[in-house]
């Protein structure tokens, strides 16, 4: 019992802080209720500390339903940091929109605890519960600005499509439960599917459904349809959180479940991996080609995040330890870069959903040289230019793909990166090479979100120059 609590401490603490923050928000007089944000942030900092203290401990809790190890700890740290970064940046943004309520921070805490559960899960049901805790928090967060049409539309779309994909996921789990004779633990599933050359139809169907559900969560083509509208409509800080922490959590579950369901070597699993490779290639191409047509920064980043999911899928296609550790590194690099880019957009956003077009960014280098500079840095990183963080992730994932015999996938990735140069550079063109033409300009009000941006910049540069620091962690994991 003691160990059960000990090993699930980050999750337990995170839920604890979430619940108490909610209570504080509800019962402490309104005048003092602005203590919720500092309370939630410092709570997550404590979670982060405990996750770091658990580093290097391996164990299972609750009859093997939850595991703790380097893998889970790595993701705990990732999720907690993304939560902290978002909460710091959210306050000035929400105040600017005149819509700051305590529930926002509470929901972020709940989402983080769901994410952690996904990374700690060793059981399909636990993973499912984690996914649901996270997703429901996201549905609400998307529709958070409830008097803004875009936000409500975003929340509704996300909820409907999310519920639909959850159906796939749950149906798949049920089929697997039947096919394996009542097994839901990853290790037990792995043990029962790895023998024999042919996969039973039931298992195959279950695997397919689960992979569809997970592909939806990571917004890979052709299950990406929701992401542009949701990313555009949701409050910018929420989008920043969903596209970084949320994506990382989905991949944390994806890696584990794919590892359990796709045994090495069988003829069927080779086919499944081929299929995943096709999804990966299609996501990279589709996301980058569609992004070229965008004129709205949030939509652009949404489409680019579909493409980024494609790159990350390479790690799962490779299925090797190099693939996994490369993917984990990529997620950390992506977290810093994408978070930074969205928070810059949030700082520049004037009224809800306004000042986000390319034409509003024209001449930004003259008005806000610093913001334009860091935005270019994030764009170069997303583009995969050395010496920035995402480049190294790409390099590592290409290596893993080639090692696994998927040289064509690496080539498609390279080609897709060339396409992506067009729109990432397009934003820089607007900021640096054009002058502002029409409409009013509003001064940016970064406020405290400058802290988030600063940390993101430091992360992009440090992860790019000294990747081995993080590689040492991700490398040990598997």
């Amino acid at each position: 019992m003691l160990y059960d609590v000990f090993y699930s401490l980050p999750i337990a603490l995170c839920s604890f802080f979430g619940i108490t923050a909610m209570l504080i928000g509800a019962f402490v007089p309104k005048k003092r209720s602005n203590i919720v944000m500092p309370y939630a942030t410092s709570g997550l900092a404590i979670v982060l500390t405990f996750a770091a203290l658990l580093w290097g401990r391996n164990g299972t809790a609750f009859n093997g339903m939850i595991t703790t190890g380097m893998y889970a700890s790595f993701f705990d740290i990732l999720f907690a940091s993304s939560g902290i970064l978002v909460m710091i940046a959210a306050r000035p943004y929400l105040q600017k929109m005149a819509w700051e309520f305590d529930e926002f921070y509470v929901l972020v805490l709940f989402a983080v605890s769901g994410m952690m559960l996904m990374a700690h899960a060793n059981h399909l049901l636990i993973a499912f519960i984690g996914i649901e805790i996270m997703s429901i928090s996201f549905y609400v967060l998307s529709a958070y600005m409830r008097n803004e049409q875009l936000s409500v539309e975003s929340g509704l779309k996300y909820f409907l499509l999310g519920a639909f994909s959850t159906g796939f996921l749950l149906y798949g789990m049920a089929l697997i439960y039947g096919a394996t004779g009542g097994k839901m633990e990853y290790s037990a599933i792995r043990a029962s599917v790895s023998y024999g050359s042919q996969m039973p139809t039931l298992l195959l169907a279950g695997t397919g459904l689960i992979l569809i559900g997970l592909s939806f969560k990571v917004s890979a083509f052709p299950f990406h349809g929701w992401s542009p509208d949701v990313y555009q409509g949701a409050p910018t800080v929420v989008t920043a959180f969903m596209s970084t922490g949320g994506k990382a959590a989905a991949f944390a579950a994806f890696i584990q479940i794919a590892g359990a369901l796709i045994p090495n070597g069988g003829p069927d699993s080779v086919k499944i991996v081929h299929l995943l490779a096709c999804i990966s290639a299609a996501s990279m191409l589709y996301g980058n080609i569609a992004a070229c047509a965008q004129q709205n920064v949030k939509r652009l980043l949404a489409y680019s995040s579909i493409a980024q999911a494609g790159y990350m899928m390479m790690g799962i296609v490779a299925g090797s330890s190099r693939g996994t550790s490369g993917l984990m590194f990529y997620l950390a690099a992506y977290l810093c870069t994408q978070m930074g880019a969205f928070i810059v957009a949030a700082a520049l956003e004037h009224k809800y959903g306004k000042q986000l077009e390319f034409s509003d960014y024209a001449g930004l280098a003259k008005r806000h040289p610093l913001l334009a500079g860091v935005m270019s840095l994030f764009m170069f990183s997303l583009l995969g230019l050395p010496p920035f963080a995402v480049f190294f992730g790409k390099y590592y994932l290409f290596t893993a793909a080639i090692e696994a015999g998927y040289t064509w996938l690496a080539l498609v990735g390279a080609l897709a990166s060339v396409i992506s140069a067009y729109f990432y550079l397009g934003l820089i063109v607007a900021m640096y090479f054009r002058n502002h033409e029409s409409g009013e300009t509003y001064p940016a009000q970064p406020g405290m979100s400058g802290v988030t941006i600063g940390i993101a910049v430091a992360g992009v540069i440090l992860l790019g120059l000294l990747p081995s620091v993080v590689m040492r962690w991700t490398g040990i994991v598997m």
Partner: protein
Amino acid sequence: MVAERIWRCKAHSVTVSTVSHNYIPIAIMLLATLFAPLVGALALLLVSRDAKKALKYSSLLMSLVAFVFALAMLLGFDHTNPNMQMLTNVSWIPALDAGFRVGVDGMSVLFIFLTTLTMPMVILAGFDSIKEQEKEFYALILLLEFGVIGIFAALDTFLFYVFFELILIPMYFLIGVWGGERRTFAAIKFFIYTMFGSLVMLVGLIWLGYYVQQTTGHFTTNLLLLREIAPTIPLSTQKWMFAAFMLAFCIKIPLFPLHTWLPDVQSESPLVGTVVVGAVLFKIGIYGLIRFGLEMFPQSSFEYAKIMCALGAAAVIYGAMLAIVQTDMRRLASYALVSSLGTMVMGVFSMTPEGIQGAILQTFNHGLSVTGLFLCLGVLTQQRGTTNLADYGGIAKVMPMFAVLFAISLFSLVGLPGLNGFIGEYLLLLGTFRSPFLNNWTFGILGATTGVFVAIYMLKLYNNICFGKFPNDGSASMSDLTTKELVTLIPATILMIWIGIYPSTFMRFSDESTKALVGKLELVKFGTTKYTETLKKLHAAPATEGAAHKEH
């Protein structure tokens, strides 16, 4: 961090040894040369935006400091030794065996030296033409220099790629911020074109590392190890890797038919950008052909030498034809560049010491002449605000000094004996004619036509600008070169004459390394070589390498 000063590799095994401390100061010279521009770029960020003079002169100073370091490096370089020297090896990403590995052999030391020599002139050229956002401008130029030196010094494919892509950022901003009317188009075209090549190369680099993993069990990006193992890859696989690398470098050079970005970039860049592309960037492509083409994939090089030479010959003729009909000075000069790059590619793929040395010398010559030429054109443009040939004439009367210096730059490109261009051109053609690999005179003859073509369009250019009548009689408003312009042009002119008369000042550095490379190639192809003496030195033990340095 563990710095292992020197490492040698034989096929499939790596020996690491630490060499006496005498070795270290010279290796530091290379590092100093490499990092001086970066330090300069960062230091510029601290200088106030309004202190324009301080910005200009501190950037010039840093580029001169880099040059002085490079000079010290060149003096410390043992040119009788064909091996890699001044090695530094710092572990960077152990999981990939990627490290900060730098070092130089006779060829790259020359490339680095010549780059640092050109950069101060480039910066001087920017003094008058760049009027806004100077701080960013000079920082970017220095960053560019850092990247270019890094490319020549890197002995690690990962590091090489980092530098290779790093120069895209400054170039992109140089064109996009300070360029002409269609600058956005030119900047994006340049970026996407180059990035396409380099990403294909990236896949090639990883594939190569993975191939090594299959044979030795370890993924590696160590160039010295790779160049021992790469030649053992069977031709069927090797040719794809070769193709991936050649694509990247042929775009970078740029070789016909991948040159289409060049005229746009050249005519839309600010003058300084034009000089950088015309004097520095194309060196990278030529260097890549030697380092990654000939050294890594000899069999593929034999197989496709004729195709590469045919492309080179096509570039010579095609570029020249287009240069003849241009009415814009910058476009003319950029097609002239396309044309003469063709001869350099032919020289490299002749795989003879003459051809390769000629190519290296010619990259430098061309850098000098192009710097001179563009600076002259810049002087004109600044006074008249147009690059159209029809707007000029009769300049020789009003600007006599200009006419003389302009003539020297032009004649160096034409290949007049006594000037540097002649030596380079002669070596290139000699190599192409004598090559046992090509074994065909056609390429030499096609390459030799360049001499005729270049004379036609360059003399036409000179004739048009310096003689005849000035349209609308605006010549009265033209004034001769100022002291600052003279300071920029005269060093270039002196070097042109120097190399024309006594090229071995520079040539001796690349002599042994080139011979070693050709010797290896001949051994693979014919089984015998006349450069056995050099090859013996190449296989010397690390200890002797250190000893050789002590004597020096």
